[in-house]
């Protein structure tokens, strides 16, 4: 166990820090090099992980395109070669220029995120609480069992087994969601059916707080706001979706998207506000990384960027032609053009994401077609963003709206981002968004955390200015008390649930039994997703096909007013004796059924067509006798 843990702990920085660190080194140089002034140590540290994720994705995509078998030595070689190449570029670009830099300018950038003593204590305390709460919550769910994670890890195992990337044949999965887990498995041996996936997701979730913090720091030009992000995003609603629950639930795309969206916007903000083509290139690079990782997050980013750009143009209407010309001058430079061409090359010739087709795009845009896509009510918005965060964010919004200069980029970045996400969640029809509204609502926390952090910092200033006033003190404490109690209430609720390790292990035991005893080329298995805990992991025991074994899904899924759905997987469990059930058995060839022992498991015993071949406290397995 110690050796396995050591291998995993050593593999994580090799995959998630090394490539990104050297990439940033090649682009910005070391502290004393000529490019060092652009980016502080804190920003480099925060960006190393997302840059690594994207770099590793692109490396693996290239290896796969070259038909190189993906295994441990190949991946180690590729990561080391990439890092070495970046180091050579760094030496070539910055090696002899170290002394040429204006020291004052450099120090200003290096010190931008040099927090004061109390700010550092505050960040450390917030980080400790953020990691502690997530770890405590995850410790009750760490044995793999969640449905989404099971589906994702099936594809990870496919990559590991085949040594190449899969053809999904469906737009639901995107390759960037799986590459990093496969790489970690191939290098460390850590199984996808262990703690590794949750550990990786927890790492990316925590790094997401850092990336939001550097965005806040730059937009509001205030390290206090950057520090406050650690409290607003890390501590408040630490367990609610899309934080701890998304980590344990294996919502891979969202977790990576929540880390990469602030990174892309950070680079865009710096590219536009500082008229810097290097940041423009990195914006394209991080946006491409998102496109290869999660379609919904990429969709959110596209809408966010469009809103920011349009708002800025509208607020500077008289100078709009000049502004657009300026943007062209930023983006039409060698570095961004090279990145753009590289991305296009990857899309066309290396790996085209499975969702990248006109049909999938048409499905996501247009008038909402289902009740779940008509928008969220205010109470649902409050649940998604968190009451305290929403109130503080609204307060921050109002203050920033009144205080900031409207013609500056920060005004458009901070406010348009919040407005567009609010509209996409609340009135998606206005923006031709045809995606489940609650999924969009999960992104609200990003801009509202930014604004809430700003709001709290400004509130503190107001309090300090009128500290003799009893009412301002009382107001501040009431507000913070509300924020902390409401923000931590979800954590308190989450800890009340008991671990279901015993059920998960019984599910695994039954899957192991069936995988050993059945001939999956002849036998067709149906399992009950509704009442079996951790059932989606069944497919990892067979590794036959994504849709094997068949599964009775949540019952609401069978009632779809927009198109007819198959109902056999439901009828074969709910009414196996009925004419429909019998016809389904003949049609599908199902001859084994796995059920919760306490529910359908008991009632199934009355059907004479079945033998019961397996019985545990939690699961029953039946074999159909009549073929």
């Amino acid at each position, binding site marked *: *166990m110690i050796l*396995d*843990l050591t291998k*995993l*702990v050593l593999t*994580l920085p090799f995959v998630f820090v090394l490539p990104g660190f050297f990439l940033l080194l090649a682009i910005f140089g070391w502290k004393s090099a000529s490019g060092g002034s652009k980016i*502080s*140590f*804190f920003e480099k*540290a925060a960006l190393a992980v997302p840059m690594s994720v994207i770099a590793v994705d692109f490396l693996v995509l290239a290896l796969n395109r070259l038909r190189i078998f993906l295994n441990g030595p190949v991946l180690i070689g590729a990561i080391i070669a990439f890092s070495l190449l970046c180091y050579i570029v760094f030496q070539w670009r910055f090696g002899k220029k170290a002394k040429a830099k204006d020291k004052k300018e450099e120090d200003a950038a290096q010190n931008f*995120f*040099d*927090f*004061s*003593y109390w*700010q*550092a204590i505050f*960040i*450390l305390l917030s*980080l*400790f609480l953020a*990691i*502690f709460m997530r*770890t405590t919550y995850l*410790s009750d769910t*760490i*044995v793999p069992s969640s449905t989404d994670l099971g589906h994702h890890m099936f594809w990870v195992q496919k990559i590991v087994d085949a040594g190449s990337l899969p053809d999904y044949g469906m737009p639901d999965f995107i390759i960037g969601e799986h590459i990093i887990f496969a790489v970690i498995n191939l290098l460390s041996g850590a199984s996808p*059916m*262990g*703690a590794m996936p*949750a*550990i990786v997701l*927890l*790492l990316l979730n*925590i790094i997401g707080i850092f990336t939001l913090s550097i965005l806040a720091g730059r937009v509001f030009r205030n390290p206090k706001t950057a520090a406050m992000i650690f409290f607003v995003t890390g501590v408040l609603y630490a367990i609610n979706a899309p934080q701890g629950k998304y980590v344990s639930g294996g919502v891979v795309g969202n977790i990576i998207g929540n880390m990469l969206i602030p990174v892309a916007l950070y680079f865009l903000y710096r590219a536009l506000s500082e008229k810097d083509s290097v940041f423009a290139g990195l914006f394209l690079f991080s946006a491409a990384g998102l496109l290869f990782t999660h379609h919904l997050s990429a969709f959110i980013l596209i809408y966010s960027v469009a809103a920011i750009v349009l708002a800025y143009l509208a607020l500077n209407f008289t100078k709009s032609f000049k502004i657009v010309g300026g943007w062209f001058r930023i983006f039409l430079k060698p570095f961004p053009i090279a990145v753009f061409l590289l991305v296009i090359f990857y899309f066309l010739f290396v790996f085209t994401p499975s969702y990248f087709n006109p049909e999938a795009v048409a499905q996501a845009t247009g008038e909402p077609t289902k009740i779940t896509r008509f928008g969220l009510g205010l109470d649902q918005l409050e649940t998604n963003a968190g009451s305290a965060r929403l109130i503080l964010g609204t307060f921050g919004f109002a203050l920033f709206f009144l205080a900031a200069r409207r013609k500056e980029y920060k005004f458009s970045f901070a406010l348009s981002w919040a407005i567009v996400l609010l509209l996409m969640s609340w009135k998606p029809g206005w923006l031709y968004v045809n995606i489940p509204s609650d999924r969009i609502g999960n992104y609200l926390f990003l801009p509202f955390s930014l604004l809430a952090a700003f709001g709290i910092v400004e509130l503190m200033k107001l309090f300090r200015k009128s500290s003799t006033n009893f009412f301002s003190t009382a107001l501040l404490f009431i507000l913070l008390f509300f924020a902390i109690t409401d923000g931590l209430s979800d954590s308190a609720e989450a800890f009340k649930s008991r*671990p279901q*390790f*015993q059920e998960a*292990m*019984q599910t695994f*035991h039954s899957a192991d*039994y069936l995988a050993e*005893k*059945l001939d999956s080329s002849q*036998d067709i298995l149906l399992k009950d997703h509704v009442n079996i805990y951790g059932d989606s992991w069944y497919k990892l025991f067979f590794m036959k096909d994504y849709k094997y074994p068949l599964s009775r899904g949540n019952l609401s899924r069978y009632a779809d007013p927009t198109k007819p759905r198959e109902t056999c997987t439901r009828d074969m469990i709910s009414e196996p004796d009925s004419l429909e059930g019998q016809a389904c058995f003949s049609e599908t060839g199902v001859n*084994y059924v796995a059920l919760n022992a306490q529910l359908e498991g008991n009632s199934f*015993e009355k059907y*004479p067509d*079945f*033998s*019961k*071949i*397996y*019985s*545990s*406290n*939690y699961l029953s*397995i039946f*074999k159909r*006798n009549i073929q």
Partner: protein
Amino acid sequence: MSSKIIIIATIIFLIVSFSVLFVIETKNHDYDYKKSWSVVYFENPRDNSLDFTIENHEGEKSEYNYEISIDEKKISDNKIEIEKGAVQKIYPIIDLEKSARVTIEVTADDLKYRIYKNIQ
């Protein structure tokens, strides 16, 4: 300087967190650790063999009683002790002259597990 302290502290927090989660998962990813359950199954579900297995994951040595019935008529009744975490295979010898349902009922304390085959 404060940035470096924050990054180093974060690395330490994360290593501790990952280690705790890894150890908890490894320990609990076990059929016996802090668990209490049993399972009975046929060794060969694809044929007419009645060989079956009892696994004891009750967390302690347990005595199991198993009854074999043909069409609800009991034909044998035995007891067996199984160590904690052990797997016991049982090979009943039964002559069947016609189609029947053979049921194996295993009990231990207040637990009852039933498996059966419809033999053609």
